[in-house]
């Protein structure tokens, strides 16, 4: 038996025993790469995801909503921070990861390439987008890679709070004036299909799934999670008195779940490839923040270095 295969065997034993792989453990190169891709994509999604909601902070309609939205967007920055840190344990630094985002080499969730056009979008994003994210992320709390799993425990707690907050915004709108109700329905119409797309391509077209499931990075397939999301969300929409924009949606007694219409995968791939309504705006905003911040980061580093020198001199003196 070669050394690698015995290491690999040990690695798989850890996975099969539902134990965690830790940063210093041996891992197949492909496992490391898959995790870097997935965790960084997740971190980037948190950071880019601050923008569509950030768009409404200065216009939030009440003090309570303004504080909640501000805190929510700040939580996303916090999630980005844990996830970049988790990713760094795999031997790649944040600067490199950001460069991959800024050059378009790394992806982020396509949902954030849609615009936030009304206040109701703050409700719909919380309810649907965070709802879909939780569906994807709860199983990641049991992911085989320890630092990622632990980060996700914290992320999921906060996300479920955001989801309730979003649904509560929708509830107030749905019970409000005719104009508010129309605003809520319009937001649902625009966010429904992109939310379903968040689970990724159908299982038959998903390229990364099989190995991820073997390595217990992923626990359920895209289609399984999408189905769960639909089954969870439809009764919530009913409760709001809003209509999901899918004429083919129908409860299927036999499978105890909803059948739903086909997803427009052309739209999905089009947005992934950069042709969504806000791809350029989102990326430009991130690049601009990073570039405008470079003198600040450089100055902070220079100051820290000066302080360290002063400290050293005083220590040797």
């Amino acid at each position, binding site marked *: 038996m070669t050394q690698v295969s015995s290491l690999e065997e040990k690695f798989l034993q850890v996975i099969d025993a539902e134990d965690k792989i830790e940063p210093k453990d041996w891992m197949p190169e492909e496992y490391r790469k898959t995790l870097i891709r997935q965790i960084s994509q997740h971190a980037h999604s948190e950071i880019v995801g601050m923008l569509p909601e950030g768009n409404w902070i200065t216009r939030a309609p*009440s003090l309570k909503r303004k504080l909640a939205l501000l805190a929510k967007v700040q939580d996303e920055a916090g999630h980005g921070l844990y996830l970049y840190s988790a990713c760094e344990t795999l031997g790649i630094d944040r600067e490199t990861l950001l460069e991959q985002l800024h050059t378009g080499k790394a992806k982020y969730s396509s949902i954030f390439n849609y615009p936030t056009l009304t206040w109701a979008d703050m409700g719909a994003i919380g309810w649907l987008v965070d709802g879909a994210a939780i569906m994807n992320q709860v199983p990641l709390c049991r992911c085989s890679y320890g630092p990622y799993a632990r980060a996700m425990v914290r992320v999921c707690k906060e996300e479920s709070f955001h989801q309730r907050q979003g649904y509560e915004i929708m509830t*107030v709108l749905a019970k409000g004036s005719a104009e508010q109700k129309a605003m809520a329905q319009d937001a649902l119409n625009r966010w429904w299909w992109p939310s379903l797309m968040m689970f990724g391509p159908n299982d038959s077209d998903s390229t990364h799934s099989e190995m991820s499931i073997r390595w217990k990075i992923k626990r359920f397939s895209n289609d399984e999670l999408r189905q769960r999301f639909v089954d969870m969300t439809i009764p919530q929409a009913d409760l709001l008195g809003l209509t999901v924009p899918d004429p083919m949606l129908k409860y299927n007694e036999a499978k105890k779940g909803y059948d739903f219409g086909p997803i427009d995968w052309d739209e999905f791939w089009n947005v992934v490839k950069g042709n969504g309504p806000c791809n350029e705006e989102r990326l430009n905003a991130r690049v601009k923040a990073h570039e405008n911040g470079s*003198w600040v980061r450089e100055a902070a580093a220079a100051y820290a270095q000066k302080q360290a020198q002063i400290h050293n001199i005083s220590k040797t003196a």
Partner: protein
Amino acid sequence: MDQHRRKFILQWADNAMILGQRLSEWCGHGPVLEQDIALTNIALDLIGEARYLYQLLAKEEGGLVTEDDYPFLRKEQAFYNLLLVEQPNEDWAFTIVRQCIFDHFHFHFLMEMKNSADPALAAIAEKTLKEARYHLKYSSEWLIRLGDGTDESHKKMQHALHNMVKFVGEAYEPVEADVAMWQAGIGPDLTKLKDKAISDLKQVVAQSTLDWPNQQFGRTGGKNGSHSEHLGYILATMQYMQRSYPGVEW
């Protein structure tokens, strides 16, 4: 309610509100993730502080108005915040300089207010003082770090300080409401407060290796509702929803 007290509370609340609104513009656009989070924290603290004060006023005004009526339904001239806090973010240098100038006033103001003869106001000061102390530490450290960082950062900070120094004095110039509140034992003696706060501020500036600009003329007016052109735009954004959809719940 005593009109001087009402106006004094609004001056305090509007400072926190408008600066919080300004800082919240940074959310998602900060120079580095950690500072994006830190600045948003300050925004949250300040808007939270404004909210306590607006809630107090709403309660005292007999339930005819809500906390939201104050920030979202008043016109420019009924806002009494300092001109300082409505100045644009421009860049991180302006933002830090503005913050550090404000924090020096705010911290010393709250230190006095916690001993106010008005128990409701003293309680709010006590509650928010811990946060204000942290803000002061944060902005002072950044002022020093960037003043004494690179040549480029030094230049940017000096430029920002040069532009902002004319807004330092207004906080300490008593208007009628300040005088009335001081005489009633509710508000601080601004002249005394000025000595402490400005001398601390100048010390931080000296430590940052920046020069204190030689500027005689100070801008005032905000505390009496006479603002810069910026406030109208802040309100146009902030009040957009309440103005577009009057009288509904959110």
